[in-house]
């Protein structure tokens, strides 16, 4: 039990990941899909961050009185990944705006109906 609870950070990651994934798959609304995608990505960010944390460590800046530091690399990587995620969201939202202009809806089912009719 302690093992399971002790790894709570991983559980958070897994729950978020599955939630996000479920939203992407199950929702019909294009915006909601993007939200799901963001949650999904965020869970991965958390995974990286949690890996970099060293028990009792501090921010990796050389200073008097500290000799345990957290691993800075995952943080840096995730910063990049966050930027990538933001860019993805922006492009996705841009696409949704254009889809809304062309189809007048952002529900996937309705768009499909329109495509089939066309």
């Amino acid at each position, binding site marked *: 039990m302690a093992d399971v609870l002790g790894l709570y950070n991983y559980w958070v990651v897994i729950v978020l990941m599955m939630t996000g994934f479920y939203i992407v798959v199950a929702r019909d609304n294009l915006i909601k899909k993007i939200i799901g995608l963001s949650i999904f990505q965020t869970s991965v960010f958390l995974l990286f961050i949690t890996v970099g944390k060293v028990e009792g460590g501090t921010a990796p800046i050389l200073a008097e009185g500290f000799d345990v530091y957290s691993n800075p690399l995952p943080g840096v990587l995730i910063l990049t990944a966050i930027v990538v995620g933001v860019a*993805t969201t922006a492009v996705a939202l841009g696409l*949704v705006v254009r889809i809304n202009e062309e189809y007048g809806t952002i529900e996937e089912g309705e768009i499909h109906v329109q495509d089939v009719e066309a």
Partner: protein
Amino acid sequence: MEEHLPVLVVLVPMLAAPLCLLLRHRTAVTGFAIAVAWLTFAISVLLLLRVLDQGVISYELGGWPPPWGIEYRIDLLNAFVLILVAGIGAIVATWSPASISVELPRYERHYLFYTAYLLCLTGLLGITATGDLFNVFVFLEISALSSYVLISMGQDRRALTSAYQYLIMGTLGATFILIGIGLLYIMTGTLNMADMAVQLEGVRDTRTVLVAFGFFVVGISVKMALFPLHLWLPNAYAYAPSVVTAFLAATATKVSVYILLRFFFTVFGHEFAFGSMRLWVFLMPLALIGIVTASLVAIFQNNIKRMLAYSSVAQIGYMVLGISFASVNGLTGGIVHLFNHGLMKCALFLAMGCIVMRCGSVHIDEMRGLGRRMPWTMAAFVAAGLSLIGVPLTVGFISKWYLVLAALEQGLWPVAALVLLSSLLAAVYVWRVVEVAYFHEPRAVDGEGAITDAPLSLLLPMWALVIAIFYFGISTEATAGIARMAAESLLGTSP
């Protein structure tokens, strides 16, 4: 500058992309982008020559030695893929100006197109050149984001929904890869591929590595559109502007196949991936089902771009099939097909682009009598189509030869038979177009004047590819020869 080649090949297009934004002037941007694309190609050629001469080249970014810093590591395999990507990039860029002025009338700001195009090129080249796992992810997203934008520029509004669909699938795939990278980082504490291969010794059989392995398999399969994770591809290719389709079809999925090779052979090692994990049990059936199913679906498409897109899914199957043999001949077949298919699919989609330009559509009914109206375009289509079928003297034959040989080597003669049978399916869908184009009377033209052949600026790049298809179908030292050496080094059997 010689020693900077590994980074220059990525840097040149990357530097040119923002410059396009600053230049703005249409003709200037077009000329600039074409020049940059050719420069990149020249660099990639130099790079390959250097690798052939000196062996693996390692380049430390920022002067930090690997495994701490980011390393660009060029061996035969990625030098070969770089040439394909940069070469296609250059040819398609040269082809593009006349086509986008017809297909992107709404985009008066053409410099945006070229910016996205160069960024996409940067991303694909970056994935290939880097020796750092996280860098792969970043470049993967750079290329993917710019390709979403490029695809959404299509005239049909379905281009938007297909770009959206691709975005969702692509992001999921890339995130899966990122998870895999994270898990491997947990186990090894390094992101350098060569170093990771060493660090993985001893921890290969831990659960974390196995899970990472699984995430990689799924993520990469999405990215390279392996059946049944290919659903994003047909629409994206069908509705994107022809330039974009030609470029992406010839490069994007190929680079994903490269990632597959790199991860499973260099990082995990083939004994692990194909020996103890038995990856082939997963890849081979999917590849075979993909080949047959996608080819069958292609036969029933009336939109020819969509037909070719399904054919791409099938062709990815060939590459994966070759890889799943995990033998020298199989890998040679897979790698050489990666290159060959890039050439022929690009030529086919460029032909489609010429037809879109003259007829406005690539519906099969529009192609009636085009054999007479656009003889050069259709001749190129037929030539590249023959290569798709795998007729001797074309590159397609070479790929098929190695694949069948590899299958026979392992005693898998039904697989060999299936590979050959499926080329008949390709014959069916290519010949469907040929019959319509050469045997049906042209559609009555309502007063707009007769359709004539595409202008020379479109024909020349396309025919350059067709000539390459035949050249590399006859003399394969430069393709199959290098692919074979790359395969041997991946399998660790090179002398």
